[in-house]
């Protein structure tokens, strides 16, 4: 069984403690969100899980066959065109060039890019298009685990829904597991099986929320309803400092 298991994870940068005693487990086909205010150590936690940072204390065990990362900003290579950017991960996995290009073109179309965009450099794309390319690059490798670092935060509502719909489709087919970092509770409720609330200074998990309804059956009413409910939660109010002082 593929899983990502974090046990007793602590992390500090110099003398500043960033994370304290983090424990959770993500199994195959599951979507786990970590929500919390900005600067609460969410990104650090994600980087530790994705092996972009070295674990100092505690353990991160990742037995997923493959993983990919979609960043908050698109992080495309400015000197490569759309297709070459998308095929980067495929080529790194040893895929043949012609096949990589074919797969990249297919997924680019699926993500709403047009054939006339294929040869464009990132500088000629709008912010939303760049994020599509970045998503396509992460998903074209068919990762069994996807790390998402607030990838929707800079997008307009339409594009956000579109990209989320693609993810929801993959989730409902149990094709993918996701570790999702966000500060947007509604986004988290729409996509997750489980939400962990990370409180800052130092980052530690204070509460867990579970949602059992299948993602493709969650309509706007459900998401709004659950959001309203979660916003009444005292821990949430306290963590996000929602109370007027």
């Amino acid at each position: 069984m593929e899983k990502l298991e974090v046990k007793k994870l602590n992390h500090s940068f110099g003398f500043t403690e960033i994370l304290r005693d983090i424990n959770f487990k993500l199994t195959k086909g599951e979507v786990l969100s970590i929500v919390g205010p900005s600067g609460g150590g969410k990104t650090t936690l994600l980087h530790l899980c994705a092996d972009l940072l070295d674990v100092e204390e505690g353990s991160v065990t990742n037995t997923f066959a493959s993983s990919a990362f979609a960043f908050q900003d698109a992080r495309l290579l400015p000197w490569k065109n759309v297709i070459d950017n998308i095929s980067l991960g495929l080529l790194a996995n040893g895929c043949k060039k012609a096949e990589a290009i074919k797969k990249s073109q297919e997924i680019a179309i699926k993500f709403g890019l047009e054939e006339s965009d294929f040869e464009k450099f990132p500088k000629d794309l709008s912010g939303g298009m760049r994020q599509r390319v970045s998503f396509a690059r992460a998903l074209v490798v068919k990762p069994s685990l996807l790390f998402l670092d607030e990838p929707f935060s800079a997008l307009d509502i339409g594009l956000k829904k579109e990209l989320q719909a693609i993810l929801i489709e993959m989730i409902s087919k149990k094709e993918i597991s996701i570790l999702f970092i966000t500060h947007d509770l509604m986004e988290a409720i729409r996509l997750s099986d489980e939400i962990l609330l990370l409180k800052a200074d130092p980052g530690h998990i204070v509460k867990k929320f579970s949602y059992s309804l299948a993602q493709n059956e969650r309509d706007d009413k459900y998401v709004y309803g659950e959001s309203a409910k979660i916003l009444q939660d005292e821990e949430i109010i306290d963590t996000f400092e929602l109370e007027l002082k």
Partner: protein
Amino acid sequence: MNFVIKILKDFPAYLWSGWGSIASIFLFIALWDMGNQIYGDLVLPSPLETFQTLWLMLQDKEIIGEINTTLYRASVGFGVSLALGSILGLIAGFFVTASMMSRPIVTILVGMPPIAWIVLAMIWFGMGDETVIFTVIVASFPIIFVGALQGTRTLDGDLKEMAVSFKLPWHMKFLDVYFPHIFSYLFPACVSGLGMAWKIVVMAELLATSDGIGATLGVARSQLDTPTALALVVIMIGSLMFVEYIILEPIKREVELWRS
């Protein structure tokens, strides 16, 4: 390979865009001719006379030999600077300590006037190829070194992280992530290094050797042969312009298409 074909395909369009520059060169020649009419042939020979002398010189095997000598010295000097400068610049860029330590040394190298290097080289190596080549190296090395150093130091940390997250193998990391960025710094540095090499080689020859374009220039001066001197200047400027505008600029345009 596609890349070379693309450069060749875009070349005619690029040449066609050069009419403006050609007009400005002609304007410059017209001003030159005006200077000739005011100051006379001895001080400033007319463009026509200069180009006639140039034509005769290019028929002369001896002059071609001198040009080749200078070309040889400049290429060896520039080649060594290019190799040393890019390798050491890369190494210095990848290590913080090395880049900190190399900065003052580069300042010394850049700050030292080339003429001082020529004098020292004449003492160390005597009059000959080595002196000229050495001077060319010390003059153009720091430019290329700084280019490579800057390129390496300014690599984007976010892109590096992205490369790690996709588990790019080392050769892809270098070719697809690091190299294009470093190259965008190194290439302009090479262009100015080449210009520097070409200027310094003539100066060093004038002072330290008895052959090459520089030495021929020295002879023309002693004989007050202004047309020959000017013709040599035209050769130097002409070759530099040829390399820069006909060879390097089209490559640069193609390579840097991705820049905004």
